[in-house]
């Protein structure tokens, strides 16, 4: 291993300093510092409207930060557009599904695979390359449980099935950093269990950041948890520390825990 890559491993894969985002007078995210190490599984918890999704949007570049810097893989990406960050190795899902409703599951995944590769504008199909990408799409569909609906238009999938597709699309480019925004929401219990398994079985080199209100999923998968409230990070710790933390219970989990059985 070269010095550079060693240094990279010592460095966090993602480092936020002083990140803030305002919407008019509202500070949706304020002064967030965050370091995520290579291969870490990080959960971000917080009450509704705490700023979790906004933080994701700032990291992925969908909205610009009002203040602060974002380093990814040791490079300052604060001014890069989303597509450049994707090419550097970020992949994400959206809280509200964003897939291509007029295309088949296969083509959705194909596009997700192609995104970080070259040849977006290629007006001819190369049998070998496309075949390989389509095989990869097939694999992904099977992995998220959509193998049986490979050829169908996404617009005719049920809500939960579209949520499954989201995860598949985020994985497609083999990103270094995968950000999942409430991947379990809308999934049935069976699918949630499958999702948890899937996340647990991910390549350990992949770094994962997860927003999730289902504690069964979040606390099982994460090895570190960040809790946000009113745009700020207020607690950080291991799942067990979080479970035991009184603030977390007061602000987020409530007295009993109805999150699931």
């Amino acid at each position, binding site marked *: 291993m070269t010095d550079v890559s060693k240094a990279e491993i010592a460095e966090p894969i993602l480092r936020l300093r002083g990140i803030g985002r305002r*919407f008019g007078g509202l500070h949706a995210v304020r002064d967030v510092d965050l370091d995520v190490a290579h291969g870490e599984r990080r959960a971000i918890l*917080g*009450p*509704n*409207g*705490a*700023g*979790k*999704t*906004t933080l994701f949007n700032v990291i992925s570049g969908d909205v610009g930060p009002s203040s602060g810097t974002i380093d990814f893989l040791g490079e300052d990406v604060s001014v890069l557009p989303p597509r450049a960050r994707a090419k550097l190795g970020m992949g994400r899902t959206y*809280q*509200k599904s964003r897939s291509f409703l007029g295309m088949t599951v296969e083509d959705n995944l194909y596009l997700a695979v192609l995104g970080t590769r070259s040849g977006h504008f290629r007006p001819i199909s190369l049998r070998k390359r496309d075949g390989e990408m389509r095989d990869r799409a097939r694999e992904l569909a099977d992995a998220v449980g959509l193998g049986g609906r490979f050829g169908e238009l996404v617009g*005719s*999938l*049920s*809500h*939960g*099935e579209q*949520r*499954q597709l989201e995860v598949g699309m985020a994985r497609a480019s083999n990103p270094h950093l995968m950000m999942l925004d*409430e991947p379990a*929401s*809308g*999934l*049935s*219990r*069976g*699918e*949630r*269990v499958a999702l948890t398994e899937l996340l647990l079985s991910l390549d350990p080199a992949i770094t994962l950041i997860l927003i999730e*209100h*289902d*504690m069964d999923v979040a606390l099982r998968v994460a090895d570190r948890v960040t809790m946000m409230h009113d745009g700020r990070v207020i607690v950080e710790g291991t799942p067990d520390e979080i479970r035991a933390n009184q603030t977390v219970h007061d*602000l*987020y*989990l*409530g*007295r*009993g*825990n*109805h*999150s*699931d*059985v």
Partner: protein
Amino acid sequence: MSDVPLLAVEGVNAFYGTAQALDDVSFEILGGSTAMVGRNGMGKTTLCNAIVGVPPARVSGSIRYNGTELVGRPSYKVAKLGIGYVPQGRRLFPSLSVDEHLRMIAGRGGGSKRWTVAKIYELFPRLAERRRNGGAQLSGGEQQMLAIGRALLTNPSLLIMDEPSEGLAPAIIEHLVETFRRLEQEGLAILLIEQNLGMATAIAERQLVMVAGSIAAETTAAELSTDMELQRRYLGVEPLAERT
């Protein structure tokens, strides 16, 4: 109550093009809360839309509310009969602010005037803080709160909710469970579709299970939360013991 059920669903079929999404669904609700669970893509949303009259599925069969036939009736008339709807995916209006969502509906039509805009803000203080935000400028959970508030404001006597817990933080869910229990005691009937079994069983004693477009089983909250075999059969959950 008299012998007429509040909601009587009888032999309902629904199609998307040639694909059948509901297959001869029949059940009745006399009052109180009923929950329906089922895996993704089983037809739960299709059923809710069929009751309220929301496109695009083609629906046949009979759905009666207090004896009035709903199939073929435009949905605004269905809503006026006293059916409130919290749709899956929230379906807010991006062009309206939070406040406008509520004001647009408040005070319309007859019925009990139990709910007012102020009461909704009381129920979800978060919405009051965001009253000027557009429907698409809310966080996922806030959107869900607004969708619920919007439905309550129609002052329904039957409330149909399609996965209302989606995206909500655990504390809010807890809060909602209490609220719905209270409302049920005040006479509101609820049909709840849920993936969150905790919420489903906390609110409703009666549980319907939908599999592949039909009601496959009717059971109770207690049974559903404890009977792993039932869960595995209908919800695809592997009992923990079998996992490695």
